[in-house]
């Protein structure tokens, strides 16, 4: 073995500065840890650490203020986009993002989500869609799949009773204030790289002043789905993506002068 000199050692993978060095409370197989890391990578990569304000939601990620090292505000359930608006309108040079789950963003906070997007508010939303209320014990979410069992749809979601699941990317894509909108399952290293690509554009949409940006991550909740982590990943790739097709829904960031059609 040739001797390795200190100057030859290069760090190729590390914890992002924006991510706290502490254990998470998330369940085994949960996607939150991965998505937190990706968000923190963006803050580091764009040099935004000192000018970022994160808004975290009510739900499983309610304690995310312990995990991000930038300034953080804890919003009430569903109101993170309104809180973000209040910050961005008074501190327009800061980077303001919300981190929200599907119950928070697509149910109780639907009004704030739509109006913040409609105003073209220059904020970025990182949206965790795992199709269930995890924190409160596995109740049906607006994004729960047809037939999916939950503690409030024990026989499986009956869409005759509840209506079908809400596809947020399709819903928001009609609003001209939206500068960037994309969806990606966090299920493989390849998909994580695509997620990074999408998230970079969602950051740029804000710092370039283009408008509202949202990246929806299709995430696993093995505990509340009654699956092991591997089954949960497989379930996302095989079933969840059929209802929520991944891809870029709106892209006014790329500079091609026109909106890119839905990728898949």
């Amino acid at each position, binding site marked *: 073995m040739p001797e390795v000199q200190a100057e030859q050692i290069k760090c190729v993978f590390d914890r992002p500065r924006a991510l706290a060095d502490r254990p998470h409370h998330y369940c085994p197989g949960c996607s939150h840890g991965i998505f937190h890391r990706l968000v923190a990578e963006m803050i580091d990569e764009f040099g935004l650490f000192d000018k970022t304000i994160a808004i975290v939601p009510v739900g499983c990620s309610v304690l995310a203020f312990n995990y991000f090292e930038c*300034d953080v*505000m804890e919003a*009430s359930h569903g*109101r993170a986009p*309104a809180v973000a*608006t*209040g910050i961005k*309108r008074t*501190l327009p040079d800061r980077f303001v993002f919300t981190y929200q789950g599907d119950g928070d963003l697509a149910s109780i906070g639907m009004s704030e989500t739509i109006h913040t997007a409609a105003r073209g508010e220059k904020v970025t939303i990182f949206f965790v869609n795992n199709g269930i209320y995890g924190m409160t014990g596995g109740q049906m979410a607006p994004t729960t799949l047809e037939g999916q069992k939950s503690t409030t749809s024990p026989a499986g979601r009956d869409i005759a009773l509840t209506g079908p699941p809400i596809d947020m990317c399709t819903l928001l894509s009609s609003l001209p204030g939206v500068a960037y909108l994309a969806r990606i399952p966090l299920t493989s290293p390849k998909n994580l790289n695509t997620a990074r690509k999408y998230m970079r554009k969602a950051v740029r949409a804000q710092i370039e002043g283009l408008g509202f940006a949202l990246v929806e991550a299709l995430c696993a909740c093995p505990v509340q789905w009654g699956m092991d982590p591997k089954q949960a990943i497989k379930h996302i790739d095989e079933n969840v993506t059929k209802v929520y097709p991944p891809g870029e829904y709106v892209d006014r960031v790329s500079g091609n002068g026109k909106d890119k059609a839905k990728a898949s």
Partner: protein
Amino acid sequence: MPDLRLVKGNEAICYGAVHGGCEAFFGYPITPQNEVPEIMSWLMPKYGRAFLQAESEIASINMIYGASGAGKRAMSSSSSPGISLMMEGISYIAGAELPCVLISVQRGGPGLGNIAPSQSDYFQAVKGGGHGDYNNIVLAPWNAQEMYDHPRIAFELADKYRMPVIVLTDAVLGSMLEPARIPDEPPEIEVPGKPWAACGRGGRDHKNVINSLYLEPEVLSDHNDKLQARYATIREQEKKWDTRLVDDAEFLVAAYGISARIAFSAIKMARERGLKVGLFRPVTLWPFPSEALAEIGNRVNGTLVFELSGGQMLEDVRLALPGRPVEFFGKMGGVLPSPSELCEEIFKAAERCNAGSSSRTNQVRV
């Protein structure tokens, strides 16, 4: 001293807010306070400050949470049903120790009620409204001058104690044109630094977190103890009240806001007819100036509480005057008594008190 100018109460509030350093206004239309967002929509941008018409009062109060958490002086204005919608947000603002100013222009209730003047949201403002053990400082202006002065005082108190301050007014004061001394341009003011604000670290060696979540019971208990200690300080230091014609008074009327205006006219009528009546007007409804009221209430023959409600401030007056005769006269639904009608009620109440037939706290069904 600035010249007198004729302003509507709602207009005075806007100048008071801007001159008091308001940096962000978020609001939603609702009668009878629509002049406030309308004026703020051009007055705020004139000084480079933020104005946004929110999609709802729920959004408004959460925008305030964001702007205030970022260290800015933020305000909203609404009326009864809209203030009800803000209650969750106010509780979060109290829990997260954020300063903010809310203008509550009361209208008739309950429910959609009507757009006429009322004072039926005293409990909502003074006793809480939202969940949890918290208080708001509540100021009650009674004329256009105070409608101008109170928003600035409210911002100062909000920043000093890091809590919501409500200016509780009503449809009459909001709509009435009166003279008030208002400078043409915002005066120089000093705003305290906010080292706790989550405005981006900017090189700070620690992160700032705006939060009202404390999962450990002992920690939340300590947090509540801290808030209660702060409220105790405010009770000691911030009580404000106004008295008229009390030195020789044999009978007292307790009223706030527009009711105190009507009462003052009625009192002067009663004095012309030989009854020496005084006025006690709380300016802070929370903290309620109980001791100042007791000092007068304990030496007169009785006290009449007059409100545009079914009897809300009445409870605080009774608590301040245990064992003393306390009478009540109220009008609801937007009906305003004339001063002469109130004057008659003062005579009737004074007669009951003199005859010893008035109810006392320990005899009253609570």
